[in-house]
């Protein structure tokens, strides 16, 4: 067989090198998997013959975060337990232990208030005052590159069945286990005499969410879906009434639960227990450009037991949840504070810098601050009833004027999921039920 490999090397190496190369723009879209099928096919043709562009594509891949193995595998393995596969599959469900499923993207009242405080003329750092109730948990597994913007509409009710994995082709992964804090460990068995090694999927705790940096560890084909520790299902097939959702059509997977918070210990415990809660929510992003539209539709899939995934319509909020999850999937937490009327941010809490670029221009003195999702979502307000918002850790900003600038300042901001409440210095109150898209004044000034 070695001889044949060498023959292939030789023949592959003799193909004529293309003279014209794709531009950086196309290569980027290829890497980020944004190219339409026909263009992607053309680019694959080119890459198969062009070592130069293959090298560029390879170098252009975003770096994988460094993996650090913390701790070791537990001594007593549950691999040997009878019905292990079922238990293993069930563990995917257990990731969202004890989940209330009906509308998981809508938090229970006050459950997602990460930091909500008045900072009147204060230089107090937000985290110092952040004695918060335990946040709901989310696990976000991202497959491939961020998908194009979603339409946020999914008006069809679907049902999808995912049978539990009974057998596995080779090479395969062992059932992942928790090792130390923050890592899922799986043993990879190569085919035949191939390599056998251990892989570590780092999980990061970010306030209300646990993020699985699993893009390199996720395997979803048309018959098989596997995210270590999160999903394990084979033969994804649809019921007659619903269109088929192929694994290959899925661009991103997001898993989320509300209370109780998921802890690593809980996952480990659930994995070896037969009494596993059977509810969780799994968001699949499915591009439908192969069907009637080029826009995306979002599907929400409720795990309804070990061997079933039933999907229902994706209600409002699912799309924005996925968008924000995708956006913050590769970013560290951001810290915020107000000092002397300035809005400051820091990624390490050592160096602080002014964060809102138009502060001087708009002559705002900030007085109130609220953050969520580890500081990636930030609302700040102050003089002239000016409210500013960044959904991506201070990269982009929206500015709102909630009323007549002479009517005072913003003194308090509260976030509860998509619900926002802002209070003014003259006892006014504004609310927004949709993450700041629409505002209603519920209390007039004194």
């Amino acid at each position: 067989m070695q001889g044949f490999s060498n023959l292939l090397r030789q023949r592959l190496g003799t193909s004529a090198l293309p003279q014209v190369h794709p531009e950086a723009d196309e290569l980027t879209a290829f890497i980020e998997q944004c190219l339409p099928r026909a263009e992607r096919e053309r680019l694959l043709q080119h890459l198969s013959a062009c070592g130069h562009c293959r090298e560029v594509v390879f170098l252009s891949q975003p770096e994988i975060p460094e993996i650090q193995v913390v701790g070791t595998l537990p001594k007593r393995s549950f691999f040997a337990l009878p019905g292990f596969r079922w238990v293993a599959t069930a563990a995917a469900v257990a990731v969202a232990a004890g989940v209330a499923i009906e509308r998981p993207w809508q938090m229970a009242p006050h459950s997602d208030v990460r930091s909500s405080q008045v900072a009147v003329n204060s230089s107090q750092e937000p985290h110092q005052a952040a004695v918060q109730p335990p946040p709901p948990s989310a696990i976000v597994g991202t497959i491939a590159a961020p998908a194009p913007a979603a339409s946020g509409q999914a008006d069809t009710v679907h049902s999808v069945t995912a049978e539990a994995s009974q057998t596995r082709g080779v090479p395969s992964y062992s059932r992942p286990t928790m090792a130390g804090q923050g890592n899922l460990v799986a043993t990879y068995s190569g085919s035949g005499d191939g390599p056998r090694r251990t892989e570590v999927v780092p999980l990061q705790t970010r306030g209300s969410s646990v993020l699985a940096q699993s893009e390199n560890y996720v395997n979803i084909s048309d018959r098989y879906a596997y995210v270590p520790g999160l999903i394990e299902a084979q033969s994804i097939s649809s019921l007659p009434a619903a269109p088929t959702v192929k694994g290959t059509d899925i661009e991103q997977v997001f898993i989320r639960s509300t209370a109780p918070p998921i802890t690593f210990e809980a996952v480990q415990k659930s994995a070896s227990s037969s009494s596993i809660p059977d509810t969780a929510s799994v968001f699949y992003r499915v591009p439908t450009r192969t069907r009637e539209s080029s826009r995306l539709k979002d599907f929400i899939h409720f795990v309804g037991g070990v061997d079933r995934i039933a999907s229902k319509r994706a209600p409002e909020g699912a799309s924005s949840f996925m968008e924000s999850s995708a956006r913050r999937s590769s970013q560290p937490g951001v810290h915020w504070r107000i000092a002397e009327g300035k809005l400051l941010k820091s990624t390490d809490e050592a160096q602080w810098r002014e964060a809102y670029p138009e502060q001087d221009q708009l002559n705002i003195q900030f007085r109130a601050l609220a953050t969520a999702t580890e500081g990636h979502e930030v609302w700040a307000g102050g003089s002239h009833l000016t409210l500013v918002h960044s959904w991506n850790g201070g990269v982009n900003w929206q500015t709102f004027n909630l009323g007549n600038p002479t009517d005072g300042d913003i003194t308090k901001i509260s976030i509860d999921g998509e619900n926002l409440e802002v209070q003014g210095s003259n006892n006014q109150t504004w609310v927004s039920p949709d993450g700041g898209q629409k505002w209603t004044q519920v209390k007039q000034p004194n």
Partner: protein
Amino acid sequence: MQLRRLFLDFLPLGSERKVRDFLHVKLVLSAMRMSSGTKPAEASLPAIRELFDKSRGERYGLTLAAFEAILEQVAEKYSPHADQAKKLELWQDLKLEELALARACAHGHEEAWTEFLRRFREKLYEIARGMTKEDSNGRELADSLYADLYGTSEKEGKRVSRLNFYMGRGSLEGWLRTVVAQEFVNRYRKQKRLVSLEEEGEEGVQFPAAESSFPMPEDVRLSQATDEALERLTAQDRLILAAYYLDNRTLTEVGRMVGVHESTISRRLEKMIKLLRKQVIAGLQARGMKHGQAEEALEADVRFLTVDVRRKLQENRPAAFQEDKGSN
């Protein structure tokens, strides 16, 4: 002038001329803004207005008409004969905010540059450092790219910024990463050509004997049958083979390149090799060989191919690769 200070702080020494050019471009931009106010009415199509709002280009001084012109440029490039509906489909998938930012930078908008540097300055150094694996080389690579992004060359008296080539199909950060990678690969190739014979001799490199001294007993039928089998593969499968066998990428690396898991690559490779072998043997049989002879031909050639393959691989590999996977 805040932007002047920004660039003087930022650009390498001797770049004052670039700043003067830059300020000149600002004047051009102002003129462009003034003239674009009289664009035709189609510029106000609601859909385009929606895209414009989404791009937040106004913040960087872009007008609706200028933005529409950028969109048309993208459509002209990637979907030249498309009708309006198809164009809109293309435009909706663009990274509009980053496209507006890049083009505003290309036009020299001060606020856009501030934003660009804030977002990407350190990132670009990190990317370049990651590729060169060395701090000073990384900085040099990033600096040279900044000069290109700013636009040091001129065409018909106008500064040409590389950011004008960003079309918003992927993220701006991804595009920057790709541009750095292209620059890095090009430099490596240039440097490779400049390595002197003395240097190679000092490093103990053994020069290959003249080509004619290698016996090449390869049966032409074997090449034909193999080429035929390779041609039947899909482009993606050929890419997987090339990345694995020619570039010596690991399964994980190949998987990342095509966006599938490494175990899938492993399975696919295994299947592909079996299928190819079968097809090559069938091809040889169709060319008059018996099955046993065909099997023998595959194995017999190995001794010679080893030499040939090694040489071939050295020819076109642009960068340092990992350990060879058993070409011996």
